Structure formats: structure tokens, C-alpha cells
């Protein structure tokens, strides 16, 4: 098999954490040597991309955890005396009418706040599942090779061939009462392959590194080699891919809800609200604007975080 690099993620991902290239004569001498992790952290802290995205994500996590801190309104209670064609009261900060009302008289602001929860839970939930299971499979395939690798790699190929969103639609279509957990399950079921491939590649690279060969020669146990020597060195590309994937899972959830194949109407999801907005887009664009804006901002935060982490972990990109 040719070892062509074919990551489904866009850019090349750092495979194995190469130590910062020793300064050669052609370049200026480096500062005092630091470990890769410390180096990455120092790099991250002074990257405005990271600072902005970290602050944003922290804020989103707080909103998701304690939505009632931000609004007193009930996102599911409709008050038909409030008309959705009325313009939002942009001066009424944090008031129920701040972003206006939807066609059932529900506070859009409250729905935007409560919708954060679904997006974050789905994004984080799928990422955790996929990273743990996909990562484990990738590690097994990469480290043990042979038959393990053949079987797991074929399995990965098979699942990789199924279109992600389409597959999720088929799975979710079978369930009539869908919860966040159904959505998480469906997305994780179809989304694990990317992490498996990245982890497999990273483990294979790390496996042949001198320090692993040395550890093996010194009689270290398999689990010790795997978890103490290989994993820390193979985890960098996985972190990068997982961070960026988190954003795409949030998009997937909202797309499914938009298509009516995600969460039911009892749950507050930005995608569902955007679906509601499509019928009134002409007369009441605020129905689209606020959930769509919040959704994009959330995705942006995770994509930026992924970018910043990749730049920090890949010395080549500096």
C-alpha cells in the first residue's frame, strides 16, 4: 500500500511531536531549550487566536451550564401577546425581548441562551466518545499491527466510506423520539474513523522512534510502553483533530435539527430555531440572525482553538 497522506481534515496534521529543530548555522541561535509541552504552552499563551477562543469557549461553557444566570425567561413558554414581527429591542440588555420573539411568542434571547446547552453537550459528548473509542482502536491497530491492523483498518475504511451527515440522517430517521443522546450516538457511530486514522499514523511513527525501541530493549511492559512512551508522543495530532472536529459536530447537530432529523421540538436547538426562521426570513430576519450568529460564533471559537493548538504543537508552522 502506498503511504499517501490522506487526512480528511484539511491541513496536514503534525505526526509525532518533532522536537524543535536544532538551530543550525544558517539561523540565529535559539533561546534556552524548553520541553515541547512547555514550548507549546508558551506559544499558545501569546497567540491572540488562542486567548480569544479560550475566553469565548469558557463563556459558552458557563452559559451552557448555568443558562438561568443569563435569562429569567423560559425558552419554551410562548406568550402570544408578543408578536414576532416586532423588531428586537436591542437596548434591552438581557431582557426577554432583547432579541425579539419568535412566531410562538417565545423569547429568542432565552432560546439562544438555552440552545447553547444542546450544542455544547453534543459537541463535547461526540468528541469524547470518538476520541476515547476511535483513539483506542487507532492505538491497537498502530501498535500491534498485523492482523489487528488489517481488520481495524478495513473496518475504518468501511465506515469512512459512509457519508457522515447522510449516515447520521439515516440512523436518526429511524428514531421517533430523539434526545441529545440519540444524536450523540449517531454522530459518534459514524464519526470515529478520522481519529482512528490519525491515532494509528501517530502511533506507528512513535513506535519506531528510538526512545520506544530503547524502552522495549530495557524490558518495559507493553502497557507501560503504550501509555508512558507512545501515547504522550502520539496525542498531539489527535488533540488537534479532535478540537477542530468538535466544531464540526456542533454544525452537524444544528444541520440535522434544521432538517428536522435532529432534536425534537421540545428541545431548544439553534438548528431547529433556524428551521423555524426560514418561513419568516423576509419579514422577521431576527429569527434567523440570532441563533445563526450564535451558532457560527460557537463553531468559530472551536475552529480557532484547533488552529491555535495546531500551530503550537507543530514547530514547522511557526
Amino acid at each position: 500500500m502506498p503511504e499517501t497522506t490522506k487526512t480528511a481534515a484539511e491541513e496536514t496534521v503534525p505526526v509525532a511531536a518533532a522536537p524543535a529543530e536544532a538551530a543550525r548555522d544558517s539561523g540565529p541561535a535559539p533561546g534556552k531549550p524548553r520541553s515541547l509541552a512547555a514550548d507549546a504552552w508558551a506559544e499558545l499563551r501569546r497567540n491572540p487566536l488562542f486567548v480569544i477562543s479560550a475566553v469565548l469557549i469558557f463563556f459558552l461553557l458557563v452559559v451552557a451550564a448555568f443558562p438561568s444566570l443569563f435569562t429569567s425567561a423560559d425558552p419554551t413558554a410562548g406568550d402570544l401577546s408578543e408578536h414576532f414581527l416586532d423588531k428586537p429591542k436591542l437596548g434591552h440588555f438581557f431582557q426577554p425581548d432583547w432579541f425579539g420573539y419568535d412566531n410562538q411568542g417565545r423569547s429568542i434571547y432565552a432560546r439562544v441562551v438555552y440552545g447553547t446547552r444542546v450544542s455544547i453537550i453534543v459537541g463535547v459528548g461526540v468528541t469524547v466518545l470518538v476520541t476515547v473509542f476511535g483513539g483506542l482502536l487507532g492505538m491497537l491497530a498502530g501498535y500491534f499491527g498485523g492482523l489487528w491492523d488489517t481488520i481495524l483498518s478495513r473496518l475504518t475504511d468501511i465506515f469512512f466510506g459512509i457519508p457522515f451527515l447522510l449516515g447520521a440522517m439515516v440512523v436518526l430517521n429511524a428514531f421517533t423520539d430523539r434526545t441529545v443522546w440519540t444524536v450523540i450516538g449517531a454522530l459518534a457511530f459514524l464519526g470515529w474513523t478520522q481519529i482512528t486514522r490519525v491515532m494509528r499514523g501517530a502511533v506507528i511513527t512513535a513506535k519506531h522512534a528510538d526512545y520506544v525501541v530503547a524502552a522495549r530493549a530495557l524490558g518495559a511492559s507493553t502497557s507501560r510502553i503504550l501509555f508512558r512512551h507512545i501515547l504522550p508522543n502520539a496525542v498531539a495530532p489527535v488533540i488537534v483533530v479532535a478540537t477542530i472536529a468538535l466544531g464540526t459536530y456542533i454544525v452537524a447537530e444544528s444541520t440535522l435539527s434544521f432538517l428536522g432529523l435532529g432534536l425534537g421540538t421540545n428541545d431548544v436547538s439553534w438548528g431547529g430555531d433556524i428551521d423555524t426562521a426560514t418561513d419568516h426570513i423576509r419579514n422577521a430576519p431576527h429569527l434567523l440572525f440570532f441563533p445563526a450568529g450564535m451558532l457560527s460564533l460557537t463553531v468559530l471559537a472551536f475552529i480557532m482553538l484547533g488552529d491555535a493548538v495546531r500551530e503550537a504543537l507543530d514547530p514547522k508552522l511557526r
Partner: protein
Amino acid sequence: MTILDMTADVPAPRDAGGPLLEVRDLHVEFHTRDGVAKAVNGVNYTVSAGETLAVLGESGSGKSVTAQAIMGILDMPPGRIPQGEIFFHGQDMLKMSGEERRKIRGRQIAMIFQDALSSLNPVLSVGYQLGEMFRVHQGLSKKEAKAKAIELMDRVRIPAARERVNDYPHQFSGGMRQRIMIAMALALEPDLIIADEPTTALDVTVQAQVMDLLAELQREYNMGLILITHDLGVVADVADKIAVMYAGRIVETAPVHELYKRPAHPYTKGLLDSIPRLDQKGQELYAIKGLPPNLTRIPTGCAFNPRCAMAQDICRTEIPALHPVTERDGGELVGRGSACHFWKETIHG
């Protein structure tokens, strides 16, 4: 006349109007996040036609950076040349336009890099890369360029050149690849070749062959050659004169054999003492203590003082100039200089 002018003892240059290349008080700095790295701090040297200057130094001594400045391939930014002149055929190249410099590159000054595998384009055939010189600089057709490429490959003694002209760099051995680099540099018969560690990446046996080939071709075309290396062994046979660099300065200059016999700088002495020698078998090998300085924080005074056994107070405060080195009785030593406050003690013991 500076003490570095040694044109008297080499064959008459092609260009009678002075040395082929003259670097005057060159400074190069890099603006990095950790501060300004002063990579080159006032380098002077000359090279005449047919002459070989070896520039010797550790990593970070500024030897390659100086070469890149001459070649005009420094990355600017982060690099900057705050001061200095580089005369080529009597004209300051630093005052030329980008286009004028480009026309000198490859045609009049060529460069050979250390790692031929990464320095050759992996996705283009060697024939294409060699032929490109003729197509761009002389406007030859593709076919003519390929014929020239084969001729060049023959010239550097690559076996079966005609069959291999369409091969890619990774299909050649290390020594053959370096011959291709040499062929590329020679293509337009330049006046000056800069070879940056040309044999470092090669096996010892291949090193000698490549070095011999380079020296032979240099003699044949009467080119100036700047040989950049950290390997004293490579230098001895081919160089006419040596400049030893440390922390961006030339610390010692000498005709090659004099340097080996009687170093006039503690750093050079340390380098020579750290070469393993057969007659000292069994003894512990000498090593210069400490590390090369961080170029963002070069020590005050003589940059070598923290590592120098002879260092006195003056070495920590005053930067030593490149003094002319003389015999004990004051007799002239042509072309010798040492940037050490205690050069007399060093050379005369």
C-alpha cells in the same frame, strides 16, 4: 591594505583590478522574538580568482550567514544587514537592485549546499534542474539544455549520464547527488563558488572524492572558492587561507599551513587540540569547555572569554581588534591576524 589582502601570493586574478570578492565590515542581524540575534558582527575578507578561502567555525559562528549575505539569499526579514559592503568585481552588491543581483546569482556566483537531497527539488528530474540554468540564463531550448545537462553530468563524472538525466534526486546516492549540486554550480562557469559544508553529509570515503573533484574543477576554471566548514580535516588539503569565525567575528586569519603549525588565538588552539591524533592515542581528548554564545546575548568584550583559559579582565570589557600577527622579533607574517588581546602569548607561548 588590510592584513587580509593576500593577493600577492596567489596566481594573477582574472580581473586585474583587485580581488574578486571583498567583504567589508559586514553585519547581519536577525529579529527574533527572543531579541535581536547578531549573527555577523563586522566581517572582512577577500577572495581572488583561483584562490580558496576556508571559513571555519562552529554552528552559529556566522560563517553560513555571511555566505548567504554574499549570495543574496538571506531571508529578509527576519534578517537585516545594518552595515557593511560586499564588493564583487569592485561593485558593492548591497547597493544593487534585486534584478541585478539575480543576474549575478548562478551566473557569476554559485553556491553548493550541504544537504543535496533536500536542496534539490524532489519532484523535478536532475536533468531539468541542471538544464534550467541554461534555459533561464542563456535562453537555450529544452533540448539544448538537456544536452548541456548531460555534458555537465559527464563533467562531474556521473556514470551513465545519458541514461540518468531523467532520474530524480532520490534515485541517486549521496555522493552522486552532491556531484549534481557541484555540476549545477559549475554550469555557467561562475567566477566564485561558495560551498557551504559540501561534504558534511557524506561518508568519509566519498567526502575525499567530492572534495578532490571540487578542487580540480576550481583549478581548471580558475574560480574563487569560499569553503565553509567546521571540519579542520577537510580544509588542510584544498584551502589557501583560513578565516576562523566565532560569534559572528573573524578571530583569526592565516595561510592554511601556518594556522595548523602555530595558532595565534586560544579558540583556534582549542579547535586544533580537540582533533584526535594517532600519536596521542590513549590520552583523554581535549574539548573546549562551555557552549557557543547565544547570539542575542553575546558576552561583552571578547565573545570567547567565558570559555577561554587565558581570559583576563580586559577580555571581559574590551573587544579585541584583529591584530597583525608578527614573529617574536617583529618580523612580518604575511596574512596573519588574531583577534586576541594575548595573541603574543598564544603563538609564542
